[in-house]
């Protein structure tokens, strides 16, 4: 049986249960970011892992794509209230990255670094989940520039601003460091099922 959830496309009862409070269902994938879509030069592009790790490393895109691949079928939820269900991402499991980096016990938080100085912060306990990946493909195609080409993080259990586009590195740190939106009033934890949108 189907029902409507507000305006927009028809949502089944099963889908309705997967949409957190205060969200609406969309079949589109809205593009939301601040500033401009960065221009990426693959000749100089790299992805770095550093900080509280025993094996810091950096990779070019070709090396990244040679790592073991993982497919992820998941739902995503944006703080601006849209939710998109049944998305397919593909890339490298974050747990593959963590294993290679060999985190020290002092690595309790991660700062996700992206182009143009954008950062997002997460506890390592949240990052280290089997549904978290560094994606270079979405819905069967390479990421488009406005969705994060060549690489973005996907953290489905958090509002999507934590899933930084245009990712360039992961810095593991002993103490939490608020990211861009978190510094200016977004909630530090960002759990959509608790509606943790803003800190005030």
């Amino acid at each position: 049986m189907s029902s409507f959830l507000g305006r927009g496309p028809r949502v089944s009862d099963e889908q309705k249960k997967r949409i957190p409070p205060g969200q609406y269902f969309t079949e589109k994938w809205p593009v939301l970011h601040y500033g401009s879509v960065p221009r990426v030069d693959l000749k100089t592009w790299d992805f770095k892992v550093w900080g509280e790790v025993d094996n810091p490393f950096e990779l070019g895109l070709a090396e990244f794509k040679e790592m073991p691949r993982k497919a992820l079928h998941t739902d995503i939820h944006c703080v601006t209230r849209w939710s998109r269900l049944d998305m397919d991402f593909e890339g490298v499991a974050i747990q593959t990255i963590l294993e290679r980096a060999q985190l020290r016990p002092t690595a309790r938080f991660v700062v996700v670094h992206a182009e143009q100085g954008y950062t997002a912060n997460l506890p390592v306990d949240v990052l280290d989940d089997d549904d978290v990946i560094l994606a270079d493909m979405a819905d069967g195609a390479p990421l488009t520039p406005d969705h994060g080409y060549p690489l973005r993080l996907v953290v489905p259990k958090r509002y999507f601003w934590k899933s930084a586009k245009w990712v360039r590195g992961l810095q593991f740190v002993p103490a939490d460091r608020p990211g861009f939106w978190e510094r200016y009033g977004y909630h530090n934890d960002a759990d959509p099922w608790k509606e943790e949108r803003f800190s005030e």
Partner: protein
Amino acid sequence: MTTTGAAAESARREFSEILARKGHAVDNVRDAVARLEQAFAEGALTRNPEIAGVLADLTVALEQNEGQKLGGKSAEAARFITRRLEQLLADA
């Protein structure tokens, strides 16, 4: 240390007034920042490291590459950042 005096008060007040103006939020923010830069240049307000960091974030939020539209979250980012900036300017 907080900068005092008529010039500092005037710069703070005008910064807030420009932000509250009718019109496009991003245009208002750009005008408000220009007024702020004038106040820094004249010594009416002091640019401390925290303000410099916030202004750097604001620059990225409003950066518009040739041929591109400004991102859909730019206005919101500008609103959040200028709210923080107003708080910092009270002590600048």
